[in-house]
């Protein structure tokens, strides 16, 4: 089978207009630079519409979307149940002077659903919640230092960035300490060296950093971290912005057998309606109450209604199990497609958020970038160096189509690289 090769004339023209009035044309992770569009000619820039597991670009090309808007799309774009709840709420009220009671209903649902949640605080983006988590930890402990795992991503606020990043002052990252993932001894050592000074340890449930094979927690790692944090009065923050709702509806900490003090949600919480939530243990409720933290749209009712519908539907579908099965079906097929053409596709991370790398002897990722480009040109939207996301709307037929495209893309690589 031979697949149509996409053209992006309208996307390119739209980008030319965009870059005249918008910095970088499309900035951030959806843009060609941070999104690692390699080469840029292989990727669409602007979407026209989206439905289920697909989006169509402005040139009319359809894509099976394995990025799911980088996570928010968990039930399928335009899910009818979630949208019905949102549209219904929009007829009643959204952004108002007194907030809708929907926020209480959602907080109650989160407390009932998420194992480590005794309360919920709402905002808009994942970074809003990670920043609030750090401020809460500092307020509660009256300490300043934060321990991070090397290769982390917790948003774009200055404290989440690094020395040398444009616009970031040395003082803003002066209290950041770094340890390798899965290295409990390193955590013990840094805690010992900074006795009484560490406010929090913040990490994702497993290492799903970019540009590297993703790594699950070692046996007993989280339990040892939990125990030491409790002993030393360190607030344990789980950044569940990416994994949240895809591994375990009770929280990814629950999935790995421990309890966080603070857990951050966003992305899939409302299937694309703009909402994030910080949930936490009762002993931190007073501290978070004292933090000055708010935003113009944070208590809008429509996303609350969407989130309630989304969580209830995810429960009904037992969604994490569904996504795991779909992820395994897909990645097993992709591995075989690679092997059939003499390549080794390394799959890592959890199946619902799989990470891909075509192994090459030079370890420079160029072969993988060529393969991803060939897939995208044929209507399968993978990205090069970020984990992918499964969603409920993806069918077995979509997965079969994807594997066929992947196989053809590997055949192209084989033809282009007779030396391998």
């Amino acid at each position, binding site marked *: 089978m031979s697949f149509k090769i996409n053209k992006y004339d309208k996307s390119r023209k739209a*980008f030319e207009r965009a870059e005249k009035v918008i910095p970088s044309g499309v900035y951030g992770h959806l843009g060609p630079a941070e999104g690692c569009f390699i080469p840029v000619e292989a990727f669409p820039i602007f979407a026209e519409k989206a439905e289920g597991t697909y989006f169509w670009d402005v040139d009319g090309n359809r894509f099976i979307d394995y990025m799911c808007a980088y996570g928010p799309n968990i039930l399928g774009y335009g899910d009818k149940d979630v949208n019905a709840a949102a549209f219904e709420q929009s007829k009643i009220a959204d952004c108002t002077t007194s907030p809708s009671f929907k926020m209480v209903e959602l907080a109650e649902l989160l407390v009932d659903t998420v194992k480590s949640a005794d309360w919920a605080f709402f905002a808009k983006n994942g970074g809003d919640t990670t920043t609030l988590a750090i401020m809460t930890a500092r307020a509660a402990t009256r300490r300043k230092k934060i321990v991070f795992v090397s290769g982390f991503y917790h948003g774009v606020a200055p404290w989440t960035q690094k020395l*040398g990043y444009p616009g970031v002052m040395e003082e803003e990252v002066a209290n950041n300490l770094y340890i390798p993932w899965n290295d409990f001894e390193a955590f013990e050592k840094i805690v010992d060296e900074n006795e009484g000074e560490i406010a929090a340890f913040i990490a994702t449930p497993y290492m799903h950093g970019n540009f590297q094979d993703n790594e699950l927690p070692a046996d007993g790692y989280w339990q040892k971290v939990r125990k030491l944090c409790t002993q030393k009065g360190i607030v344990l923050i789980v950044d569940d912005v990416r994994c949240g709702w895809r591994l375990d509806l009770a929280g990814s900490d629950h999935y790995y057998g421990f309890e966080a003090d603070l857990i951050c949600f966003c992305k899939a919480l409302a299937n694309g309606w703009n909402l994030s939530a910080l949930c936490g243990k009762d002993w931190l409720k007073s501290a978070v109450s004292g933090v000055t933290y708010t935003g113009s749209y944070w208590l809008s009712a429509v996303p609350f209604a969407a989130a309630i519908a989304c969580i209830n539907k995810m429960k009904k579908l037992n969604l994490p199990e569904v996504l795991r099965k779909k992820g395994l079906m897909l990645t097993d097929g992709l591995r075989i497609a690679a092997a059939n053409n003499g390549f080794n596709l390394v799959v890592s991370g959890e199946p619902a958020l799989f990470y891909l790398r075509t192994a090459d002897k030079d370890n*420079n*990722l160029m072969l993988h*970038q060529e393969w991803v480009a060939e897939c995208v040109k044929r209507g399968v939207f993978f990205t090069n160096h970020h984990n992918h996301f499964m969603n409920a709307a993806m069918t077995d037929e979509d997965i079969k189509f994807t594997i066929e495209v992947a196989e053809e893309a590997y055949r192209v690589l084989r033809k282009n690289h007779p030396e391998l």
Partner: protein
Amino acid sequence: MVDQRTLAYINLYAVLGTLENLCELDPAADALLTNKKPISIGFEIKGGPSATLTFKNGRCRMEQGVEDCDVKLPFSSCEKFNGLLDGTVTPVPSKGFAHIKFLLKEFTPLTDLLAKYMRPNPEDLKDEEFFRISTTLMFYTIAVAIAQIANNDKVGKFTANLIVDGDIEMSIVNGPAATLRAKNGRIVALKRAPENPRAIMRFESIQLARDLFDGKINAVATIGTGKITMKGMISMLDNLNRLLDRVAFYLA
């Protein structure tokens, strides 16, 4: 605040080191040295770097250390050496007084010529050949300066530590190329393309490179236009761009 020690490394290896390329690119530089006896000038900077420039057969070459130089210029501090580059300090040789004529008659005109290319007036840049030489020299200066910042500047060292080992190609299509070799958090710059790059940052044209170096455009913003090609281990390039940003801090 500019770190004087880092600036001394940049001034010696990246700025004066570009005399190597000037002698290859500009016949006027070549003419200043042709039919002259080989001579070497050592720069010895207390608390900083030391290197020797050797002029031979119309060509120039820089090597680390001052052991075998004919003329030695000692500087009591990095600040004093940096003063040489901005014209506020006049060096006094500690060795090779007999060659003082070379310093005055050949070396000074050479550095003046280099300054003409490195800090060009806009009129000169309208000349295509001048533009090409000027931008090429700037390219090599920046490539070497990146390494000095990575190895000496506090912020640069933090950034360099985030770069995985391997060769980065920085190049201009139909123009110069450099290798930035990262190993164990340090970077070495070589004025040639790597044979087996782990990451590539390639500028579409010399004009684009110039605009980037002059700060008229931003590398991240230009990627979307396809005028800068990036491939391979993108995290290396991400951090390289942060070092590139830092070059302007020292050489602005």
